[in-house]
């Protein structure tokens, strides 16, 4: 069982400011994430969702508490190895895509491979096949601004998965997209998840929770609710969840979700 635990957060605290201006983005935050989970984190603005994602993605450090990634305490990992982990094991997807404007999308996708030591040919080959998966192969040499928002986000997803990471961190990936593009993007994420990736996604849109296997609601830097919404067949072990407080208002979400998820799965199958 323990080998299936990917991420373990214990008493994680992130404090900003000191004294009178002191505020906590995370406060004694405990969470265990297993391989293959598709977690959606919801909550009002300023409840610490993005901070949590940044800490999990090794972009930020907690003020206090332990973060154990793959059985290794992150505090003991050198910053250089952390960067390498970011390049190889973690894929980031952002709300505003965060593509480099001056680089053609092929090179944008190839970016993480630069830092994990691939040769140029291998980089471009992998990036090209990643783009092909998202039906963007004819636009390899477009610059980001020449693409629509949905296409840009698909480029960003291609970049996130190009180095075959274990964890995909998505910070409101559909926040800047219209509903049609959001749907396409979510379908892509779902497909990636079905391949066995662990996805942690922050969102404001409750309708998207249908894709998740687990929905966490945050409030003031702590877990408000933590619900396993879909039994994931990819997880061999049942999910053990540390729950601080549990409210029953999630039942409402479970109902429409199951229908839609079935639909989307069918669509996916047709695509394949």
């Amino acid at each position: 069982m323990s080998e299936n635990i990917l991420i373990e957060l214990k008493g994680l605290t992130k404090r900003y400011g000191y004294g009178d201006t002191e505020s906590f983005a995370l406060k004694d935050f405990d969470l265990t994430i297993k391989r293959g989970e598709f977690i959606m984190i919801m909550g009002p603005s300023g409840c610490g969702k993005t901070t949590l994602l940044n800490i999990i993605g090794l972009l930020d450090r907690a003020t206090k508490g332990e973060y154990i990634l793959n059985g290794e305490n992150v505090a003991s990992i050198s910053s250089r190895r952390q960067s390498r982990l970011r390049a190889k094991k973690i894929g980031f997807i952002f709300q505003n895509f965060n593509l480099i404007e001056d680089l053609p999308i092929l090179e944008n996708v190839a970016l993480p491979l630069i830092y994990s030591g691939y040769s140029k040919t291998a980089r471009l080959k992998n990036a090209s096949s990643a783009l092909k998966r998202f039906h963007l192969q004819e636009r390899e040499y477009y610059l980001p601004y020449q693409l629509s928002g949905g296409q840009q986000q698909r480029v960003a997803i291609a970049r996130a998965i190009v180095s075959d990471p274990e964890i995909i961190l998505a910070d409101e990936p559909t926040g800047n997209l219209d509903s049609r593009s959001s749907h396409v993007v979510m379908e892509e994420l779902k497909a990636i998840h079905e391949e066995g990736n662990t996805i942690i996604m922050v969102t404001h849109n409750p309708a998207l929770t249908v894709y998740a296997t687990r929905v966490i609601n945050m409030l003031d830097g702590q877990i408000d609710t933590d619900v396993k919404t879909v039994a994931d067949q990819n997880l061999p072990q049942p999910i053990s969840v540390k729950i601080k407080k549990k409210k029953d208002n999630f039942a409402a979400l479970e109902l429409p979700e199951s229908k839609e998820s079935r639909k989307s799965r069918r669509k996916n199958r047709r695509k394949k």
Partner: protein
Amino acid sequence: MASLIKTHFKLARTSIKENRTRSFLTCLGIAIGVASIVLILSLMGGISNLVKSEISEIGSDLIVVRPSSTKDNITNIVEELTSANNFQKSNLTVSDVSEIAKIEGVSAAAPIAISTNTVTSEKNTFSSVPVLGTNLDFIKIEPLALKFGGFLNEQNEENAVVLGHTLSLALFNTINSTVGKTINIMGEKFMIVGVLDEVEKSINFDNIDFDNALIMDVKSLDKITGSTQIQQINVKAANTDSLAKISEDIRNSLVTQKLGDQNFSVSYGDAITHPASSLFTIVSGMLTLVAAISLVVGGIGIMNIMLVSVAERSHEIGVRKAVGASSRNILMQFLFEALILSILGGIFGLILGYVLAFIISTRTPFTPFISWEIVLLTFLTTLIVGIIFGIYPAVKAASKNPIDSLKHYR
């Protein structure tokens, strides 16, 4: 690693290309600094090459005695530079020459005394003609070619002169029929016995422009001017192996003769060019220092532009860090960019400096000389400038917090 360096190189190239004007101007700052250094060094190299080649033409058996000791310090040389006529204080005499000639192993010794006089011919009068007073041995030491006539000899030495090529033209408008004519110097009549062939190089260790000079016996010169100052005694050794011993003998003999006065120097080999070359060293050193200041200014330009670049590319830095670039990767990326700017400027400056030196050399008797040392120096200097002025912006870029950087949208 090699692949990463190649990538950094490519990234830097892309970024430099993207801001073409900006990069060009930055390079220009470095190029001007480098060009001035290269210009100075290559011209200096050309000059000392010329002097050296002359020494080797004359042969390695030459010993030169000069008044006042050539100490290796700056004050001495600066003094030499600033005094209006440093030859005035010469303490060498004609009798010294004959003493030196007696020393074993010396095959010839010729004094060099220069004064400027007014020379009158049947056609023209010229003032400030350099008159070289020497003796019969002079032609044995200096390989001066005569166009017409001969050099001074024992029969005519008292009232014969030899004219330089240009001087002959100036005085008589010809070089063909000058031999046998007479000229008048301070009331004394002299007969022209020879005309020198044109001398290609106007710079030599005697400091005489032979084309414009008039050569006569030192005793005759003494007679007409009253007091002659011997600036230099050229000594030819019988064989090249015992130069050290002969020059030591000359020194001892002179010290005895002058009752302990050591205000002269005896030099041979490369040291003959010493006064000239140490002068060059100091002048070129000072000029290089001035040029180095412009290089520093160029370096500040690089730093400035790199800081702008880092600020502009905050977002890119954030993205790169988020997808796995370590601080070191970012540091290298920006350092490479600064280095490439600097080295490009260096290459540009090297070419510019050489072209300028070449243009200047069309009006001087020497060709600019670029040794591999200059090229290496240029490369190292630009490398160091690039590192010094590129490291701060690069560190600044590397230490950016990825989360904050990602908030910088364009």
